[in-house]
C-alpha cells in the first residue's frame, strides 16, 4: 500500500523529534490520569447498579461514539455527523444476524459470529460514506454526513424486511458464556470499560503514529501534503475507516445495553447529540468526548429533577443542552477542556507557562484554530 509506505518514509524525521517531546504515553506521569483509572476500575464497589449502567456505562458508550467523531474532527478536520448512524447500523446488524425476539428477521447466529460480521459491515458502511464525504471539503462534509444520517433514519422507518420499520428489533440476546451472564451489571460495566480503554489508547497511539501525524498534516494543509507525495484522500478515507470501526464497537455495546434497537436511536437528533458531546468535551484530545459524555448523561438523567426543584418545567432538558452547547461554542474553542486549561493558565500565570508540555499544548491549539479559520 502506498499510503503506509509514504507515511513511513517521509514522516520519520519529524516523528523522531516529536517523540522526545511527547515522551511516549503522556498519561504515564500524570497522577490525575492514574486516579481516574483507579476509580473507574473499582467503580462497582462504589456505585450501585443504576449508577454503574445508566450513568457510567452509558457515558462510556456515548463517549466511544464521540471519540470516533473527535478522531475525525480533531485530527482529520472532518466533522462527520454520521458516527451515530454507523453505530446504529452495527447495532442493527447485531440484532439482524444474532438472536432476537423478532425471529422472522433475526438469523440466529451466535454472538461470536454476529458481532464480527456487524463490525465488518458497519466499517464498510462507514468507509463508503466517508469515501463519499471526502469528495468535498470543510462544511460540505457536515451536510453530506447529516444527509446520510437522516436518509438512514428514514430508511429504517420505512423498511420492514430488514429493519422492522418504526418498531425496530426487540429483545436482542446478549452474550452468555463461561458461566457468566455478560449483560449482568458488573461484567457488562467491565466489558464497556475495557472497550472504551482500548479505543482511547488506540486513538491516542494513532495520533502519534506516522499515520496520525500525516493525517494532522492533511488537516492543516492538504495542498502541501499532496505536494509532499501523500495521498490526501486515501488518508482521509482510512481515517473514516478507523473511526467507523470505533463507532461500530460502540454500537454493539449499545444494542447489548438496551437489548433493542429502533429508528429512534438513530434519529437526526441523536446524531447531533454526538456532535454536541464531542464539542462540549473538546475535540483536540481523546479524553474530551468522555468528559462531554459524562456531562451529557448527567444532564439528561438529572435535569428533570433539577429543573423541577428550581420551580421550572422539567421537560425543558433539550433547551438546557442547546443553551449549554451554544455557550460552549461561543466562549471556548475547545470545549470544557479548553475552559479548564485557560482557567488553570490564569491561576498560575507566568509560573508554569514555560513548562514544555504547556508550550506544546498551546502550539497544538493554535494549529487547530488556524485550521478552523
Amino acid at each position, binding site marked *: 500500500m502506498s499510503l503506509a509506505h509514504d507515511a513511513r518514509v517521509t514522516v520519520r524525521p519529524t516523528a523522531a523529534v516529536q517523540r522526545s517531546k511527547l515522551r511516549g504515553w503522556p498519561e504515564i506521569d500524570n497522577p490525575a490520569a492514574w486516579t481516574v483509572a483507579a476509580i473507574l476500575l473499582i467503580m462497582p464497589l462504589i456505585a450501585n447498579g443504576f449508577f454503574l449502567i445508566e450513568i457510567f456505562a452509558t457515558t462510556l458508550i456515548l463517549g466511544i461514539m464521540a471519540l470516533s467523531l473527535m478522531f475525525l474532527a480533531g485530527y482529520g478536520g472532518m*466533522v462527520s455527523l454520521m458516527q451515530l448512524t454507523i453505530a446504529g447500523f452495527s447495532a442493527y446488524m447485531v440484532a439482524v444476524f444474532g438472536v432476537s425476539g423478532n425471529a422472522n428477521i433475526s438469523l440466529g447466529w451466535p454472538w461470536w459470529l454476529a458481532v464480527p460480521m456487524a463490525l465488518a459491515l458497519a466499517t464498510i458502511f462507514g468507509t463508503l460514506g466517508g469515501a*463519499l464525504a471526502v*469528495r*468535498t471539503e*470543510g*462544511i*460540505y462534509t*457536515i*451536510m*453530506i454526513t*447529516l*444527509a*446520510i444520517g*437522516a*436518509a438512514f433514519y*428514514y*430508511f429504517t422507518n*420505512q*423498511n*420492514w*424486511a430488514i429493519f422492522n420499520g418504526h418498531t425496530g428489533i426487540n429483545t436482542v440476546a446478549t452474550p452468555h458464556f463461561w458461566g457468566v451472564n455478560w449483560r449482568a451489571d458488573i461484567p457488562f460495566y467491565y466489558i464497556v470499560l475495557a472497550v472504551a480503554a482500548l479505543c482511547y489508547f488506540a486513538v491516542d497511539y494513532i495520533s502519534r503514529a506516522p499515520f496520525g501525524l500525516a493525517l494532522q498534516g492533511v488537516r492543516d494543509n492538504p495542498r502541501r501534503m499532496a505536494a509532499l507525495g501523500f495521498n490526501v484522500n486515501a488518508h482521509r478515507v482510512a481515517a473514516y475507516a478507523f473511526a467507523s470501526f470505533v463507532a461500530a464497537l460502540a454500537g454493539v455495546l449499545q444494542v447489548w445495553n438496551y437489548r433493542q434497537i429502533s429508528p429512534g436511536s438513530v434519529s*437526526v*437528533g441523536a446524531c*447531533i447529540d454526538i*456532535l*454536541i458531546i464531542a*464539542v462540549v468535551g473538546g475535540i483536540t484530545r481523546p479524553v474530551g468526548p468522555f468528559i462531554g459524555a459524562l456531562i451529557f448523561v448527567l444532564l439528561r438523567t438529572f435535569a428533570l429533577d433539577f429543573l423541577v426543584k428550581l420551580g421550572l*418545567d422539567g*421537560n*425543558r432538558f*433539550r*433547551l438546557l*443542552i*442547546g*443553551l449549554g*452547547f*451554544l455557550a460552549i*461554542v*461561543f466562549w471556548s*474553542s475547545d470545549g470544557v477542556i479548553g475552559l479548564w486549561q485557560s482557567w488553570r493558565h490564569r491561576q498560575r500565570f507566568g509560573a508554569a507557562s514555560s513548562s514544555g508540555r504547556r508550550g506544546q499544548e498551546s502550539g497544538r491549539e493554535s494549529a487547530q484554530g488556524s485550521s*478552523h*479559520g
Partner: protein
Amino acid sequence: MTRFVERHPAWALIVIIVIAVALWLIFAVWPQGLEDAIGRKRVFLNALFNGITLGGLYFLVASGFTLIFGLMRNVNLAHGSLYLFGGYVGYAISASTGSWVLSFIVAFILTALVGVLLQVLVFRRMEGQDLRQTMVTIGLSIVFADLMLWACGGDFYQIQTPNWLIGPVELPLVTAVKSSGEPVYLRYPLVRLVIFAASVVIGVAMWLALNRTRIGMIIRAGVDDRDILAATGVRIQLVFVGVFALGAGLAGIAGVVGGTFQSLSPGEDIRFLLASLVVVIVGGMGSIPGAALGALIIGLAEQLGSVYIPTYAIVVTFLIMVLVLAIRPQGLLARR
C-alpha cells in the same frame, strides 16, 4: 444552451430523449399494455403533479438556504427551524383572522426579523469562521425546536385553505378514454397549482432581481469575492443582513405553504432541513437555478418513488445525491 450541446452531445441527446418520453407519457393516451405494466395513467399524472408542486415547496425552502450560503458561506442548519416557525406563525394568524394572504405577509416579516436578529447578534460576531457558525446554527436549531415544542406542543396543525382555492380543477390532460369514446380529464387540487405558480413567480423574480438590478449585482459580486466588494465601498454588512432577512423570510413563507398542503408538527423542521440539504447538494451550493433544478428532481423522485417503489422512496432520493456527488461533486449547476 448551444454551448452545452456542443460540449456534451451525448448528455444533450439523453436529456432530449428523456424530455420526449416524459412529454409522451403526459400527453398521449396510454396504450393498454403500458397500463397493465405500470398502472393507471391517472396515478402517474397525480404523482407527477404532486412531485412538481412538492418541488415548488422545496425550492422555496432551499432557495433561501442556498442564497445565505452563497453570500455568507454560512451553512444555516437552523433553516428548518425558520421554516417551522413561519408555519406556526402563519397558522396562528390564519386561525385568528381567517385571512390566508395575511398569514403569508406576517410569517414573512416575522421570520425575516428573526433572521435579521440572528445575523446581527450572532453571525456577525464570528464572520469567516465557517465551522463555528455551523455549530452555532446546530445549537440554535435545538433551542428553537424545544422553544416551539414548548409553545405549540406536539400536535399536528393544518392551515385552513381559503374557500376560493378549495376543490379540484379539470386540467386539459386526458387520463383515459371511456368505452363511449368520451375522454376523461385529470382533476387536480387548485390550491397546489396556485402555490406552484407562486413559487415559480418567486423564483423568476429572484432570478431577475439577482441578474437585472443593482442590488442583485452587489450580491453576485459578494458571492464571488466579498473582500473586494467591501473594499469598493459597499456596506457589506447591510447586504448580509438584507440577504439573511430574505432567505429567512422565504423559509417562513414556505412554512405557511407547507402548513397548507401538508401539516406542521415537531420534526418537520428536520425533514425540511434534510430536503434543502439534498436539494442544494444536488443542484449546486449557492446557485438559485441549481436550487430550482434540484428541488424539481428531488420532489419528483420522492413522489414517483413513493408511488412505484414505496419502501425505497427515501433511498431513491439518497441515490440521486450519491450519483451527483460521484459525477459532479460541486452540484449540477454550480459554476465551480
